[in-house]
Every structure is written in C-alpha cells, then in structure tokens.
C-alpha cells in the first residue's frame, strides 16, 4: 500500500468514526447551550442505535431495500426524542438534578434496549445482521482526485449530512433569533424571562434536539459500522461526544474539530496494526489514547469559564 493511499484511507476512516460523534456532540450542544447538562448522551445514542437496527430490520422485511436504512435513521431520531423527553420533563418541569437524570437515562436506555431486543428476537441479546445499511457515496469526478478523492469524496451519506448540519447549526446558533434566545436561556435564564423569552420552551427544544441528534449519532454507528445492535455497540461513544462538546467549547465548528480529533485517535488504533514500528506499542495504549488526550486537553487548553453560565441550574422563576 502506498503512502498516499494509506493517508487517504486514514482520513476516510476518521470521518466514519467522527460522524457519529459530531451528530451526538451537536445534540449535546443544543441541550447545554440552553442550560441543561446532558450526561445522558450515551443512553440517547444507545436508543438511536437500537431503534435504527430494529426498524431497519422490520422495514427490510416489509419489502423496502435501499430506503430501509433511511426509515431506521428517522426512527432513531424519534426514539431519541422520546428518551430525551423523559430527561426534559424531570429536569425542566420538575427541576431534578440534571447530572443524575443523565445517569438514569444511561442506565434506563441500555436496559430498555436490551430488554426489547431480547423480547423481539427470542432471547437473543443482539439484533440480526442487517441486509440493508448505508452504502458509501462516491461523488463523480471528485472521487478521482488523488488523496482527496479517497479521503473525502467516498463517504457515507451520514457524513455529508452531519457536516452540513454543523454549518447549519453554526448559522442557527449565532445568526438567528432562535439561536440568540437559546443561548440567552443558557446564560442567564431570569434575564431571558424578563424580556419575554419562554425559558421552559427553549430548554425543552434544546433537550429534545439533543435526543434527536444523539439518536441519529447512534443510528450512524449501527447503519455504517456494526450493522447490528448489541449491548456493546455504543460502549462509551456518548461520553467521548460529551468530551468533544467541551473540548469544542460548545461551538458547532469547534465540536466538529474536536470530534475529528477523537475520530482520528480511534482510527489510529486500526492502523497501528499495519506497520511494524507501531505494532511495538501495546494495543491497550491505543485504546487509552482518546481518553488520555481528552484529559490533557481539558487540563491544559480549556479555560475555566467557557460553559454556558447557567449550565446545570434548574430555572425556578420564584427564586432570585
């Protein structure tokens, strides 16, 4: 394998790993920008991955073929929203501790997904391998550019969608009244309330959007990487997305950069086995890499006060 090809391939795999992280981290961004901590991203991803696997399977059986994964993809967003609704009702309406509820979502979502999988597939803890998953799109002409073609223009549709979504999110967050209000609610809810912004409504929107997007993130993993759902399909991706959100300083484009960085760390692990020199390093260290890098980055680069000011605080209009 020549060097150019390898680099192209590495970038390509990085994009595959990063896509799910970007979806989820963007979701987390909407929630946290509105002032609601979302530790439950992992659980929301699990819900999405589960729904995508099951609905795609059922859609395939119903006779759909190429469109089946799209149905599953959509279902994942819906399932994610339902799970996030639980988060929203308890943290926003009943002012429960946001971190705790996030932990609950993680426990609950995984339990529910495996329980339903076993109920639907006669006791098997894993869904069957899907026949119809996303295929890579090769963009005509562009795909033939050396290096870049292989790296960027032969990718899953989800990758193109998520990159577009990141730019849209940037625009929405910083260039529209909606974005301004969402940020205001996360920075200073009582001021926002004073000028007539419905804090509850915007926080609900933020949390539900996080459910939809994290659901899509989970679906991305099912429909592009694993082709099935089991208890270990997500295994920590939601937490890495959370780290990407913080590393990306709650900014859509920063989030993309951070997610690409973590995606690269994961891709390197696959590539480490290809070369003699990198094989010398025990594989566990490659597994550790993204987490160690996160710690270093958090300790070194990120300052103290980048988070939305009201992050984690329930809004109680009766309090001053």
């Amino acid at each position, binding site marked *: 394998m020549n060097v150019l090809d390898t680099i192209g391939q590495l970038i390509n795999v990085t994009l595959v790993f990063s896509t799910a992280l970007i979806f989820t981290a963007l979701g987390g961004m909407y929630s946290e920008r509105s002032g609601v901590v979302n*530790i439950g991203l992992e659980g929301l991803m699990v819900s999405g991955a589960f729904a995508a696997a099951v609905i795609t399977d059922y859609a395939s059986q119903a006779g759909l073929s190429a469109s089946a994964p799209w149905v599953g993809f959509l279902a994942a967003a819906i399932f994610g929203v339902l799970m996030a609704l639980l988060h929203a009702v308890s943290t926003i309406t009943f002012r429960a501790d946001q971190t705790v509820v996030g932990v*609950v979502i993680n426990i609950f979502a995984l339990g529910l997904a495996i329980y339903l999988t076993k109920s639907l597939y006669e006791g098997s803890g894993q869904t069957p391998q899907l026949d119809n998953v996303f295929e890579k799109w090769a963009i005509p002409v562009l795909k033939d550019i050396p290096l870049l073609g292989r790296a960027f223009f032969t990718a899953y549709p989800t990758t193109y969608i998520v990159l577009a979504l990141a730019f849209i999110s940037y625009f929405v967050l910083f260039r529209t009244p909606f974005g301004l209000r969402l940020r205001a609610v996360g920075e200073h809810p009582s001021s926002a309330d004073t000028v007539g912004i419905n804090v509850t409504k915007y926080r609900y929107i933020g949390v539900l959007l996080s459910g939809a997007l994290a659901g899509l993130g989970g679906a991305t993993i099912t429909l592009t990487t694993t082709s099935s759902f089991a208890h270990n399909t997500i295994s920590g991706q939601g937490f890495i997305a959370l780290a990407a959100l913080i590393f990306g300083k709650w900014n859509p484009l920063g989030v993309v950069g951070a997610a690409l960085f973590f995606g690269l760390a994961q891709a390197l692990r696959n590539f480490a086995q290809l070369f003699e020199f990198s094989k010398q390093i025990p594989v566990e260290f490659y597994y550790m890499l993204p*987490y160690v890098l996160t710690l270093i980055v*958090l300790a070194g680069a990120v300052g103290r006060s980048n988070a939305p000011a009201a992050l984690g605080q329930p809004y109680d209009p009766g309090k001053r």
Partner: protein
Amino acid sequence: MENAKKIFNKTSFLIPAVAILLGLIVGAIAMLAGGYNPILAYSSLLEKLFSSSYNTGEAIRAITPLIFTGIAVAFAFRTGLFNIGVEGQFMMGMTGATIVGVTLDLPWFIHAPLAVLTGAVFGGLWAAIAGVLKASRGVNEVISSIMLNWIALFLSNFIVAKFLVEKGQQKSRPVHDSAMLTIDWLIELMDKARMHWGTFVALICVALFYMLLWRTKQGFELRAVGHNPDAALYAGMNVNRTMVKSMFISGVFAGLGGVFEILGVFGYQTVMAASWGYGFDGIAVALLGGNTPVGVLLGAILFGGLTYGSTGMSFGAGVPSEVVRIVIGSVIFFVASHGLVKWFLKPFLGRRASKRKEAV
C-alpha cells in the same frame, strides 16, 4: 443523636419507598408489554433470593461491592463532588490487590493486609487525579472521572495481560492463598456460596462514613465545602485541599470494593472488554439512600438483591433479566425527580394535612 435525627427524617424514607414502588410498577408494565407475567417474575425473583442458603449467600456477595461503591459515591456527594469515576477506582483497587496478591510471597498476616492496603491506595490515588485536576485546573470532575474510568479499564487490562498473565489465558495467575480473604467455615455453612471478610469491612466502612463526616472536625470541613464552597473559603477552610482529600477518601472506599472482589471472590483478575458496572450502580445506591449511611446500606441490599435475583426471573418466568435495569433506572429516576413523586403523592398527603388542620 441530634445529628442522626437531622439526617433521617420522615420524607427521606417516604420518597424512596414510593420511588421503589413506582419503579417496580414500571418494570411490571414493561413485562406486560413484552407479554410476560410480572407477578410470576417478581415471585421467582424472591424465590431465587431465599430458596437456598447458597443463593442467599451469593446475594450477600453481590450486595457487598455495592455497599462500597455506594459509600464512595455518597461520600463525594456530601462534599459537593459527583464521583462518577467510582467504576475506574474500583478497577484500580482490583488491580492493586492482584499485583500484590500474585507477585509477592509473604506470611498471611502481612500479605493480606498489604494487598488490601495497596488496592485501597490505588483506588484513592486514581480518584485523587480527578480531585487535583478540579482543584488546580478547574476540570469538571464528572468529565475527568469518566475519562479515568476508561483509562483504568485499559491500564488494568494492560497490567494483567503483560505482567500477571496465566500462560494462554485471558486472566491473571491465581492470587496466593496467603492473600485471600475468604471465610472458609462460612462458605461451608452457606453451601459453597462465596463468603468473604469484605462484607464485614463494608459494614465497618458504613460506620466509618458516618463517623468521618459527622463526628470529626475534618468531616465538618468536608461537609461545609460541599454545602457552600464560598462560605467555607470565607471561613478560612482550604477548599482545594478538601476537594482532593474528599476524592481520595471516596476512591479508597471504591478501591476496597474492588480489592475484595479479587481477594474474597475470584482469586484472579480477567482481561475485561468492559467494566462491571458496580461503580455506576453505586451512584444509584447512593441516590436511593439519600447519601446517608443507613440509606446506602439499604439501597445496596435492594439493588444487589434485585440484580442477583434477576437471573431467577429469566429462569422462572422467561423474562430477560435486563428488566431489572429498567426497574433500577426508574427507581433512581423517581428519587431524582422527587418533585414528580411529591406531585404524585399530593392527593394523599394533602388529605392528611387537611385532616390535621381539622384536628387542631
């Protein structure tokens, strides 16, 4: 006893009790929706727990680590920190105990205590990393300890696979008998259930948890920092040092949990694909117990019992044992959203309150 009264009041029991009930109902609804019989399922769960002395003993074995991790989480909570990294500290405790247990050859009265101590310190130091990062760099302990969980998993796997491995297997060489802390006569008595000293140490730790926080000057500082760090700082307390100290102690409790899984139960450490989840369950236990010593103990008994009994459910009623995770998740959900529970209880409590008014 004044303090104890302050910690336990009426609502601190009522909310969890209702939450447990609601959690069991949610589980029952899930079972009905899946076409299973919830009554048969819950009764086979109970039967599993109490049908034989072996099963009861094994249930106690399953409860023990949850007491440790529950205390670890609750201790940190009381000092204003959310230690979600108990999972990793638990694992480092296991690894510390395994290293000493496998590699050293000492008389039992030195070997066993040394293994316990090493594991506890491993757990404590692992937690202290998150404490130091928070105190010195302002890194949110939730994020850093999630990262540390994964690092602990892979680091433990690396240590086991590289230095302690049994040839050709995915686990360490056995821990020497001199470091093991099983209770042989109790194992005989309980029909070969794996009983060990860890259960008693766990109970001592529950008492220690109370004494440390409510009976010492340091404990007052720890709680003061947890209650209001600004006020504590103004009163001349060293908030940063207290944070690190609190994380260390919390990590010691977590590490001890891991220690006894190795020295009391398995006698070796495996290379793991994912962590066991005792740490995350510890969060559930602490929340249910309202971060009080007795509450944590009761919470651990409930969750450990449910989890161990769930195998009986799948055997006796064909229900996937994961339904217990749904129950546990719902229980904590309802404890956390106590506003929801109070709203649910309002008709009942309201009637009682109005009756009281009439009586006056």
